[in-house]
C-alpha cells in the first residue's frame, strides 16, 4: 500500500485482448486547499476493513457494468505535492462502461472506505472532512 504507484504497470495489468476502452483515474496531491498552501498529506487506513470495503465496491462495479479488469491502489503514509495517493483503472469492451465504473469506484471509495487524510499546512494541520 505504500510504494510509489506506477501508472503504466496498472494499465498493463487491466488491459486484455478483449479491451476496447480503459479509463484511469489518478488522484494527485494538490499544492493548495481553499487558497492555503499544502505542504504534504498524511494518509492513514484501517487496513483490514479498508480492503474489505474496497472489495465490496469492486464487486458492485462488476455487477453493474461489463467490466473486464478493475484495479484499485491506495497509498498510506506521507505524500508530497504531485504524488499519487490513488489509482483506479478499469478495462471494458466499450468506453461508456469503463468511464461509469471508474467514477463509481472513486465516488464510493471516498464515501465508505476507512481511509483518512490529514492536510499539513505551514501553520497547522487538519483531518479532511472531520468537522462540518
Amino acid at each position, binding site marked *: 500500500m505504500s510504494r510509489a504507484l506506477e501508472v503504466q504497470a496498472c494499465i498493463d495489468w487491466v488491459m486484455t485482448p478483449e479491451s476496447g476502452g480503459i479509463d484511469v483515474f489518478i*488522484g494527485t496531491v494538490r499544492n493548495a486547499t481553499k487558497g492555503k498552501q499544502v505542504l504534504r498529506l498524511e*494518509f*492513514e*487506513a*484501517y487496513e*483490514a*476493513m*479498508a480492503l*474489505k470495503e474496497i472489495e465490496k465496491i469492486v464487486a458492485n462495479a462488476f455487477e453493474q457494468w461489463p467490466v473486464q479488469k478493475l484495479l484499485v491502489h*491506495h497509498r498510506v503514509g506521507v505524500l508530497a505535492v504531485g504524488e499519487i*495517493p*490513488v489509482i483506479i483503472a478499469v478495462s471494458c469492451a466499450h468506453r461508456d462502461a469503463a468511464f461509469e465504473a471508474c467514477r463509481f469506484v*472513486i465516488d464510493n*471509495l*471516498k*464515501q*465508505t*472506505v*476507512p*481511509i*483518512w*487524510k*490529514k492536510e499539513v499546512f505551514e501553520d497547522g494541520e487538519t*483531518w*479532511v*472532512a*472531520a*468537522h*462540518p
Partner: protein
Amino acid sequence: MRVNVLAFGIARDIFGGPSLQVEINANTVAGLKTSLETSYPKLKALASYLVAVNNEYAADEYVLDTRDEVAIIPPVSGG
C-alpha cells in the same frame, strides 16, 4: 461491559491514542456511543462518525460482544 475500541484519524487524536478501554452501560453500539460522547465530548463536534464491528459498519442497535473488534470511524477522506 468493558469494550476495547480502535481509533483512527481525528478519533485517535480525541482519545489520545490508537485504542482505549471503555466501560459501557448498554451493550449496544448506541450504548458505546453514549459512553464515549460523555467522556470525549469533542466526538459530538465531528461532522459524523460511525462504529465498525469486525470490519463492518454497525447500526446503533447492534449488540456488542466482548470479543468483537470495535472501531470508531470518523468521516472518511481517502482518494
